[in-house]
């Protein structure tokens, strides 16, 4: 049971994000960390490989400047190895271009299952995983809240508007997992030490046979025309509760005829 997990290394979401005024690309210069959303996929992959009685978890990531700190976090959790695609020509690559890069890298790992988050925390386009599935000719099941492997198929509980669907798919397949489905483990000290020497293969777009016109700003075929401040909402009345705060809420709801 070999599982590939797509992981994104993102700027710390706690720090205020910014656009580069020249290119309007998201600034991704500082230290990058493992996207929290991806920790669920990593945990799920480790549990599935365990339950299957063996197999490897391989991470695949695209990031600027040979960034590996987020990958080391996931390796410390227990993933066996990583493929990192890092290359100056990739700056400004959009979701479809990213999918082309990741799909080419995933193909090399020949996985039984590809896991990803439903969307990243910073860009939240939410299309890259299924684009990867289409590029690789794989079936996909998105928004999984439970994943189980039985023989050569995967059984998924897929979130729906009304509840959930039970979905079955033959392997290999791609599954995206929602946050909170499993409890991501904290890397142990031993895991952190071991992660330092786990293999990270670093590739360029050219290594994957991708033409420069398919990636980067050139491949994006979409442009930002304007960035403007949104209309600010005026602040209202703030009161400190001294035991009577709930009455203010009641009064407000009465005024709106909600009560």
């Amino acid at each position, binding site marked *: 049971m070999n599982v590939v997990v797509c992981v994104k290394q993102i700027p710390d979401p706690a720090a205020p994000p910014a656009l580069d005024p020249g290119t309007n690309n998201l600034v991704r210069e500082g230290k990058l960390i493992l996207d929290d959303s991806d920790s669920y996929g990593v945990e799920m992959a480790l549990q599935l490989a365990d339950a299957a009685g063996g197999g490897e978890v391989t991470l695949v990531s695209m990031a600027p400047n040979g960034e590996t700190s987020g990958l080391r976090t996931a390796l410390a959790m227990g993933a066996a190895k990583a493929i990192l695609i890092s290359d100056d020509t990739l700056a400004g690559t959009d979701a479809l271009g990213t999918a082309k890069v990741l799909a080419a890298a995933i193909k090399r790992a020949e996985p039984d299952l590809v896991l990803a988050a439903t969307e990243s925390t910073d860009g939240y386009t939410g299309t890259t995983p299924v684009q990867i599935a289409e590029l690789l000719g794989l079936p996909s099941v998105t928004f999984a809240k439970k994943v189980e492997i039985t023989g050569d198929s995967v059984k998924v509980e897929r979130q729906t508007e009304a509840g959930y669907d039970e979905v079955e798919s033959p392997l290999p397949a791609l599954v995206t997992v929602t946050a909170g489905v499993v409890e991501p483990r904290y890397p142990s000290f031993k895991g952190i030490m071991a992660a330092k020497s786990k293999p990270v293969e670093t590739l360029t777009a050219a290594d994957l046979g991708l033409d420069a016109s398919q990636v980067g700003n050139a491949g994006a075929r979409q442009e930002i025309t304007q960035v403007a401040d949104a209309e600010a909402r005026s602040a*209202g*009345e703030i009161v400190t509760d001294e035991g009577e705060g709930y009455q203010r809420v009641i009064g407000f*709801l009465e005024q709106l005829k909600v009560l």
Partner: protein
Amino acid sequence: MSVDKIWVLAEVADGAPITTSLELISQARSLAGTVEAVTWGDATASVAGTLGDYGVTTVHDVGDLAGALPGAPVAAAIAAAVAQGGGPDAILFPATYDGRDIAARLSVRLDRPVLTNVVGLTAGDGGLVTEHAIFGGSQMLSARFTGEGPGIYVVRAKSFAAEPSGGAEAAVVAAPAPDTGATNGARIVARHVEERIGPKLDEADVVVSGGRGLGEKDNYALIEELAALLRGAAGASRAIVDAGWVPYSHQVGQTGKTVKPTVYLACGISGATQHLVGMKNSKNIVAINKDQDAPIFSVADLGIVGDVHKVLPQLIEAIKARG
């Protein structure tokens, strides 16, 4: 590139087109001369009347999928129709579970990128111009496609008003999916409907949401109780969804639902940008949080600096006492 024809993905639930699809059709009428729809399922004939009433002239019907997930077959059917010629200049998808899947697969089939999280669409010189709320809605970004081929747009709910135009019933034409091989391997084997008391989160007049300030999972019952008393829906911040307290379907925010209720009560929610983008356009916002510097207070019409563990039970008792 002028925009003459727009297709809208008309997703059907409970025998009727979903509201977001009707919102997109309504907006498409103001952007292009011809608006057509793409739909699938076993009840497509019954929606042609409603779709026509909103201005759709032709419905491209992929037909029943026999338990397959719609991503692969519907994308393939749209791509096949585009290849035949006479296709659209733009295709609008509602930002739903299935809408995103179909848009993503279509993007690869047409080798065209997707613009997602669209909250505004206007006609510009070079085709459609999109608007996206970024950084918690503090800034609006405008974008457009370059290059040849139809634009693929995934639009968030409640970006536009749904308004019928009184059109005649739409013509239904078959748009069967070609064989999609292994990509179409997933099958729905059972459906589970979770019992919901009260209105849907994104349609409710009142939304009561809880966040990490609730302290522990069991306290979410206070949110549900207050929501029920106000005949509203219970929502959640991403933090407590990630923590596994409540299912993803309750999440309000950038990666969850967009809500615009008459009143939104944020309880124990700090107001991370992730959350604000999903609720800041509510008509009225009440926030209860013990940290007076919490960003949620910057958008609140009424802010109570206090402990949700005290204020919520008092509020619930007082409303109950009114009978």
